[in-house]
């Protein structure tokens, strides 16, 4: 098959210094389904943004149909016959399906082409739908159709504009298994009609099922390009995870004490109303770290939110010492010495337009020790903030500095300082070191282990498998809202093995794990 697209030695360094692509080669043949796989942050999205003209590469060349091309924006890419289906749908909900498909490029008629030619619009959309077998009711409003059909609308949109090369960015992330199968049928139909597909995903089962060739990205580099027939899931996952990033935490063996948190048969819905947690049970003892591993979006967020009172559970119970956490409010839970480092420090973890001191006193501003009559004792607050900033090595001018002016690492130290300042018996740390510099990572890891050694029960959720492995004494793996493995973090436990569970390739018998 002739080569359709060749991206050579692509580099992308963002102004803030993050290197998202550090030498990526990608060759796509005409008429193939090419899977682009890699962990979160491996550089897949950046690469596709560069291809689609949404970002300019720092270095490297793109050849398309044998010619070197540079795109100033998506319109250039669309003109050249590329189309992108974004992970988050770009649809106007109250417009109909056909209106969305032809949006910006409507068939027109009448004087000065002033009016929509709806007959022609329907005919063309109908034609598209029947040609590619992408069944969808074109007169329905987009807000009223299911997710799988919305995706078809996105694909039809791209086809309407004459795309030959179609990029699908994590298309199955929002689909049910049935919808996924239907999508795969459509993809095959597209290929048989002469289209070429780039399929971005981190679900290996799907890669094996649908692709012809696979390019693996890791830490911004292309590691390998494989023929799907000649490889297997184990090889791909080994290539994906690699051994580049290693967290080293020095720690003594854990000395587990009494059970602090007991979760039984917990179920919860996500924001879209689908079941995200399906009967999860586990316990954490004082003096141990339980790591939650899993590809993001497999129920971790919902699990943490239910335990901390931010989300309602649909089934099950959460017992903390002798209290029922599901019946307690967020405020009550926080007062019970439960510390929570939330996964998104920018929105939930801190108020960026408040000072460091105001961020630190979140649990203390009603405490009589911090009061002077009805007023908050400013001196006391200042003193407290200073101590916290010293202890947790927060580097800022002073405690009146706006939180928004801090670097990621320093802001995260503020969050950690606040959550540890109440000496938690249970500490829940979600992505505790995401986007944080190496020095801060080490510091935060040491603090977490210090709390464990002090007898606190710790739960660490991280998308970084190596982080989970470095910190945890035991690890549970979440896949599709269920616990698929409970593992003791012994020296012979490998990332590959956990990887199999994370990707849904392997599954323990749940009764055995308990």
């Amino acid at each position, binding site marked *: 098959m002739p080569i359709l697209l060749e991206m050579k030695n692509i580099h992308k360094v963002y102004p803030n210094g993050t290197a998202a692509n550090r030498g990526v080669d990608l060759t796509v043949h005409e008429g193939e389904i090419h899977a682009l796989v890699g962990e979160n942050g491996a550089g897949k999205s950046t690469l596709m943004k560069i291809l689609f003209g949404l970002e300019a590469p720092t270095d490297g060349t793109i050849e398309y149909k044998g010619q070197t091309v540079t795109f100033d924006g998506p319109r250039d890419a669309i003109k050249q016959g590329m189309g992108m289906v974004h992970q988050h749908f770009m649809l106007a909900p109250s417009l109909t399906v056909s209106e969305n498909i032809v949006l910006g490029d409507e068939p027109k008629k009448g004087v000065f082409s002033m009016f929509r030619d709806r007959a022609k619009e329907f005919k063309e959309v109908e034609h598209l739908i029947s040609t590619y077998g992408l069944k969808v009711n074109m007169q329905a409003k987009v807000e009223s159709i299911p997710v799988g059909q919305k995706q078809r609308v996105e694909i039809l949109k791209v086809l309407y504009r004459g795309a030959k090369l179609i990029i699908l960015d994590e298309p199955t992330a929002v689909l049910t298994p049935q919808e996924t199968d239907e999508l795969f049928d459509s993809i095959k139909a597209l290929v048989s009609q002469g289209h070429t597909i780039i399929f971005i995903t981190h679900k290996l089962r799907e890669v094996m099922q649908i692709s012809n060739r696979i390019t693996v990205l890791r830490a911004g580099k292309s590691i390998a390009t494989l023929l799907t027939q000649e490889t297997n899931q184990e090889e791909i996952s080994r290539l994906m995870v690699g051994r580049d990033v290693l967290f080293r935490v020095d720690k003594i063996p854990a000395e587990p004490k009494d059970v602090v948190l007991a979760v039984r048969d917990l179920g919860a819905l996500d924001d879209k109303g689908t079941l995200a947690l399906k009967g999860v049970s586990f316990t954490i003892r004082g003096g141990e770290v339980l790591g939650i591993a899993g590809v993001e979006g497999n129920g971790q967020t919902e699990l943490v939110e239910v335990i901390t009172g931010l989300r309602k559970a649909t089934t099950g119970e959460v017992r903390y010492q002798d209290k029922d956490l599901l019946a307690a409010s967020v*405020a009550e839970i926080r007062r019970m010495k439960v510390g929570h480092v939330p996964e998104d420090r920018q*929105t939930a973890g801190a108020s960026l337009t408040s000072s460091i001191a105001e961020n630190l006193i979140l649990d203390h501003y009603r405490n009589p020790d911090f009061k002077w009559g009805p007023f908050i004792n400013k001196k006391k607050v200042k003193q407290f903030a200073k101590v916290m900033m010293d202890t947790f090595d927060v580097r800022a001018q002073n405690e009146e500095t706006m939180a928004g002016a801090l670097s990621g690492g320093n802001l995260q130290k503020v969050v950690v300082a606040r959550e540890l300042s109440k000496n938690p018996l249970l500490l829940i740390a979600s992505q505790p070191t995401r986007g944080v510099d190496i020095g801060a990572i080490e510091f935060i890891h040491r603090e977490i282990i210090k709390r464990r050694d002090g007898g606190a029960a710790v739960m660490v959720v991280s998308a970084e498998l190596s982080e989970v492995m470095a910190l945890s004494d035991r690890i549970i793996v979440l896949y599709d809202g269920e616990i698929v493995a409970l593992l003791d973090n012994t020296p012979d436990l490998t990332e590959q093995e956990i990887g199999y569970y994370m990707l849904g390739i392997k599954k323990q018998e749940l009764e055995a794990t308990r």
Partner: protein
Amino acid sequence: MKSSKALFLEVGGILAAVVTALICGFVVILLTSSEPFTAISALLLDPLSSTFNIGTILNKAVPLILTGLALSVVFQSGVFSMGAEGQLYIGAFVGALAAVYLPAMSPWIHFPLVIVCALLGGALFGMIPGVLKAYLNANEIVTTLMLNFVAILTTSYFVNNQLKAASGGGYAKMENISKDILLPKIFPGMAAHAGIIIAVVAVIIVYLLMYKTSIGYELRLVGKNGHFARYGGIATRKVIVVSVMISGALAGLAGIVEVLGIHGTFKENFSASLGFDGIIIALLARNHPVGVLIAALFYAYIQVGAQTMQFGSDMPREVAVIIQVMLVLLVSAQAIFTYIKQRYARSGQKAVK
């Protein structure tokens, strides 16, 4: 360093906006007046030329300070209420009812009672859009605008019918309030009434409330980052209702002070959009109580200046509207303020390197 420089830039930007707005006003005067310099001097200098005029400035500033405070409180909690006008009417109305119809008693008891009634009236009326916003997520801009009309029409009905003063001479107003509880002049012979003292006390209380107490902390946190507040266990809905009620109480206070200081009784349509002027004050002051005090005094000065200009030249006082509108727009132009800060940030970085 960071915060004080940021404050400096912010205040500098606001002052620049004020100057630009004044210049816009001058340009209009230059273009339309046959004696532009007389008009400008009457606008800028005459308000300060007599103790009477200064007193008038203070009197005009009193309700502006109070409504400005009212709106600065809700704005800080992230609620864009436009309902101060209606709350002001209800507060003034309830207060005036207490002033006129309660049985005779010592003014030392009667006066505080009247004030409390006004505060409660405004707060309870403010609670309606607050609850609708917090628990039903009903757009507060629309509800407050609609409730303003409800308040104005309801009070108008009563003073046109059941509560109409027999001695009113055809005017729709209540019976006159006893002199004992009207606000006295600060100094005999000066125009300024004691409302300014109430307003300054309110500034201090609101400042303490917003920046020194738990409720103020919660209120500001809800406005700055609702997610964070919820994560921290703050009952964000209650906080929103409380903030709108505090705001309503302050608006009600503005109303009753205006009644007790200026009008002597509740009159139909007496406010003439004091509640909306409060929005301008709060925007100018960036919701800070001390800023409200300064902004309200400046705004009152311009209003009195407009009057003295109308008196002393061929310009109508509505020229002030140009200045007000430009003020509102320039002070709220995020593009300008972001630009200033970016310029500063860039030059600051260079200086460090």
